[in-house]
Every structure is written in structure tokens, then in C-alpha cells.
């Protein structure tokens, strides 16, 4: 049993090296296949964040969010509610723990899809494929599509999509 566990563990850790040749393996024909993994600590989140079109997206998102206080809340604002956008939001929010990250899609601007606790003030926004307002300050940008901006008023994000 111990040998089996050691072998399993060894196989699992060895997978990272195998990952280098994985991309050359043919795709399996199967229903609803999962995305291909490149291995590593962020094998899944990197794969789900590929739409950001940056290298090591999980590490970059983590580095960006770690600059913010843990008690802070943010809103992720995206132009639509496509499944890819949903996946991107949830992946970023999963990496963002313990910060509360709500979501607002501009094609349904009146109701945020997810909202942080009311007592939390929202002074920063993550804009995905949405332009920043002239009045807001761009604090950081990841690739072409994701910007971290700060807003002056708590409620400013509500009107973000109705410009």
C-alpha cells in the first residue's frame, strides 16, 4: 500500500515534466472534454484565464490583488454575460480570497450578478474589456483587457455601464 502511494505521488509530481510534451499529444475524442492542463500550481486557473492573453495569468492576477487590503471589496465589470466571461470572473474571484469580488455585466446593468456585503465599500473595479471613465484612475493593467481602477465614490460603479 505504501509503495502504491509512493508510486502515485511520484507519478503525480513527475507530471510536471510530462506536461512539456503533453501539448503535442492528440486531443481525446470525448464529450465535454476538460481543458488541457499545462501542469503546475495554477494548472486550472491559468487555463481558465487564457482570455487575458498574458503569461502566467494566475500569478499576475494574484500579484495584482495582493496589493489591495484584504478587507476591500471590488466589482468585476464586463460587457456581457457570456460563459467565458463568467468563468473568467469566477476564476479571478476564486484567486482573490479573502477579498470580496462582485460582478456586474453591462448588458444587465441594473442588477449586479454577485454583490459584496453592504457594509463593504467598493473603491476599486476590475474592468474586463470595458473602458475606464476619465474620472477614474487606472492603478494597474494586465494585458490588453483587464484594468484595475479606483473610483472616488462608493456608488460610482453602479452607473459604469450606463454611460
Amino acid at each position, binding site marked *: 500500500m505504501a509503495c502504491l502511494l509512493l508510486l502515485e505521488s511520484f507519478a503525480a509530481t513527475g507530471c510536471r515534466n510530462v506536461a512539456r510534451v503533453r501539448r503535442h499529444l492528440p486531443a481525446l475524442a470525448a464529450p465535454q472534454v*476538460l481543458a488541457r492542463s499545462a501542469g503546475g500550481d495554477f494548472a486550472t486557473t491559468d487555463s481558465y484565464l487564457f482570455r487575458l492573453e498574458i503569461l502566467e495569468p494566475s500569478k499576475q492576477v494574484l500579484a495584482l490583488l495582493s496589493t489591495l487590503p484584504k478587507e476591500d471589496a471590488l466589482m468585476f465589470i464586463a460587457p456581457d454575460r457570456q460563459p467565458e466571461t463568467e468563468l473568467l470572473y469566477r476564476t479571478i474571484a476564486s484567486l482573490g480570497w479573502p477579498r470580496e469580488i462582485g460582478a456586474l455585466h453591462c448588458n444587465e446593468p441594473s442588477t449586479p450578478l454577485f454583490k459584496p456585503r453592504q457594509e463593504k465599500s467598493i473603491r476599486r473595479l476590475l474592468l474586463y474589456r470595458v473602458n475606464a471613465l476619465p474620472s477614474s484612475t487606472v492603478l494597474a493593467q494586465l494585458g490588453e483587457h483587464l484594468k484595475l481602477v479606483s473610483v472616488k465614490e462608493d456608488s460610482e460603479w453602479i452607473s459604469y455601464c450606463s454611460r
Partner: protein
Amino acid sequence: MDFILLAVALLFLMLGGLGLSLLLTPKQPKQLGAAELPALAFLLGSAVVSSASFIFGFWISGAILRWAVAALCLSLGVAGWRRSGRTIKARAFLPAKKAVWLLLAFNAAQVCLIAWLNSIRTLGWDGLLNFEVKARAAFLNGGALPLEFFSDPSRTWTHQSYPLLLPLTESWLYSWLGRADQSLVKILFPLFFAAALCLLQAGGRRLAFGDWQIFVAPALLFTAPLLFIGDGSASSGYADFPLAVFYLAAVIWWLEFQRHSDFAALRLAGVLLAAACWLKQEGLILWLCLMALTAAKAFIEVAQWRMWRQILLAALPGLLVIATWRGFVRFVNPPGGNEFLPLGVATLRANLWRLPGIAEAALKELANWRHWSVFWAVAAAAILWLCFSAQRQWQHEVTGIAPTVLIPTAIYSAIYIFSIWPDFIGHLQASFPRLLIHVSLVAALLACNCSRNLRS
């Protein structure tokens, strides 16, 4: 270094599970085979580690929590060993017959396939966003999920009211590794698959299948693509396949009780079902089904008070898990909505018109070639064959296994009568394939039983 830390984490987990298995199973030496002991150790080990992390996590965290859980596993291992008074001989793990060697090779090939699929594929949507996200949060909080997580309105998509066996087992690996690693955590799933194959072999041995009949179940598994790849599969990081393994183990021990009126076997089935309730909400339905079947048997046999007391004792772990978790959920009051209407006669009457549509969609799913190929066709043929078989002894056995597949499947289909989705067929198509995974392993065992009938 990573593989040593992973091996240590898994060894502690299995030691705890091994101890609990030995404490729960009867003392007779033939009760536990070489195949089912590691399988039970892994299943019960994950239950021990996750529930201990959850309970101890209210008071301690970090390294202290990790070592407290490790000490509990060690104590359970020692207590189990002392109670059983067994010595394990390496020879006991080596097959004596050529057929079993071949089965071992075939099963090893399937485990290798699952391990490879796990290594080349990412976690699925729920694998990351329901389970791994909680494991990561628990790891960052020193091994226990903070209460704020459950009441965070911006994280309702993580389904905060779902039970925690899988996330806290993943978090146990993270705590030993010292970091959250989305690749290495997938080591759990080939182990669940290996446990399933061990249990199918053990189930065959217990039901006295011949050397070649025991090939039927693993071969049948091999025909179902959804068990290998896709949402809910053994390579997706979802809780559906692990739940199927817990249910298979519970059914095997429940059958042992049915055949030999062995109450220790019933108690072990009760503990495995309690772990299933701690793994996924649908575990409650599986627990209810087996407990109802047990009560029906007692009722038919006009059982005496002693038997009812034993049934109650077997139901107790499940009741405890369900009541504790429900109490906790009520206490933290997670903000997420519900996907089903409240169960009630009024809703049932109002939505009964959905039934034909649901039945048609469920049958279509059972015949879905891309998900199941011939799997359910073979299982259905096996059930029909056994039902119409002239030999009463086989009929007796089919009344044992067949309801454990048919009743949960019927409940799983009927639950969409209460779906809150206006497009309830869409709801069924999105989740029913994964629900079928829960009973698929028991269906494979059933087909195996039919092959014995054919031979005889």
C-alpha cells in the same frame, strides 16, 4: 520533496481510514479481503481527515491542526490494529490465480489511464469553483474554512451549503505540501478510481462470482466515456465519481447484511453512507434509499426489536452528519438561492405535467452514446434478465441489488418535477448525467451478477 510530503499526507489519511475500517468490521479474518482493505482505508480516511479538520478547525489552525488530525489518524490506526489483532502478510496481497493476475493487470491499466487523463486535463468547472476554491480558502486559513466564507454574498457561486469532504481532503494535501497545487491535488481521483476497482473485485468475491465473471464489471466501466472524461468523471475533480465509490462500498456491505444478517456489515454500510452525506447533498438520497430498503426488509420479515435497534444504530451516523451539517448551514445562513422548489404535495400536483417530458429526457440520457455508449443498455438488459429469470435464487439476489440502482435513478429523475428552472429539461440535461454516475458502479456490479446467471 513534493512526493514525500504527498505520500506522508496520504499515508496518514489511509492509516486513519484503515483503523476505522478495522474498528467497524467484524473480527472474523475472512471479512476483509486484500482488495477492499486499502479501498475502505482510503474512503474512510478521507472522511476522517475532512471531518476532523472541520471540527478541530473551530478551535485550532495551522500546524497544530495538521498534527492534531495526524495524531487522530495515528490513534485510529493503532486502535484498529490492536482490536483486529491482525498481521498483514505480503503474500495475502498477491493473487493466487492466473485470472486474478489478468484482472489486476487490466485494472492497473485503467488506473494508469485515469492517472494520465488527470495529468493532462484541468479540473472541471465545479472541480475548481465548488471544491478547489474551498480547499484553497481553507489552506490559506490554516486548514479550516473561515465562517465568513459561508456568508459571503459575492461567493454564492461556490455553493456554500455543499458538504465539505472533498474540499477539506484537498486542503489536507495542501497543508502538507505547504502550498495550493492544482496539479498535485488531482492525485486523489486516480485513488478513488482504484478504490472503485478494488471494491468491484471485492464485491465479486463476496457475491461468489467465478474467476472470469469478475472481469465483467471493470470491462463495463471501460465502455462508459463519462466515467473517464467530462464533467463529473474521475478526471474532473467533481464529487460525483467519489460519491459513486462511497455508494458502491455501502451497497456491497449492505448486501453482506442482506445475505448473512450481519449487523456489523450494516453498521459499516451506515458509516459509508454517512460519509456520502458529508461528500455531496445527493448522498442524503442514497442514504434514504438504502435505509428505506433495510427497513422494508425488516418489515417484511416481521423483525424483532433487536433488528430494529440495529437498523437504528446503522442509521445513526448518517442522521448525525445530516443534522450537524444542516444545523451548521442554518447557523451560517449562506446567501445563495435554491435550484429546487420546496418539496410538497401542492408543488407536485402543480408540476406533474412535467413527468412525461422528464421520463423521455431521462431515457434519452441513458441511451446517450457519447456519455455512456453501451453501459446502460447492458445494465438494463441485466436487470430485465434477472427479473425474468426462472431461478428463484437469482431473483432473490436481484431484489437485493437492482433496487439500489433503480430507486435512486427514479428519484433523481423525478426531482426535476421540483426544478425551479423554467426550462426544467435543460436543468435535467445539465445535471442528470452526473447523477447517473452515482449509481453506475453499482449497476456494473449488477451486470456482473447477471453474467454469473448466464454462465450457470
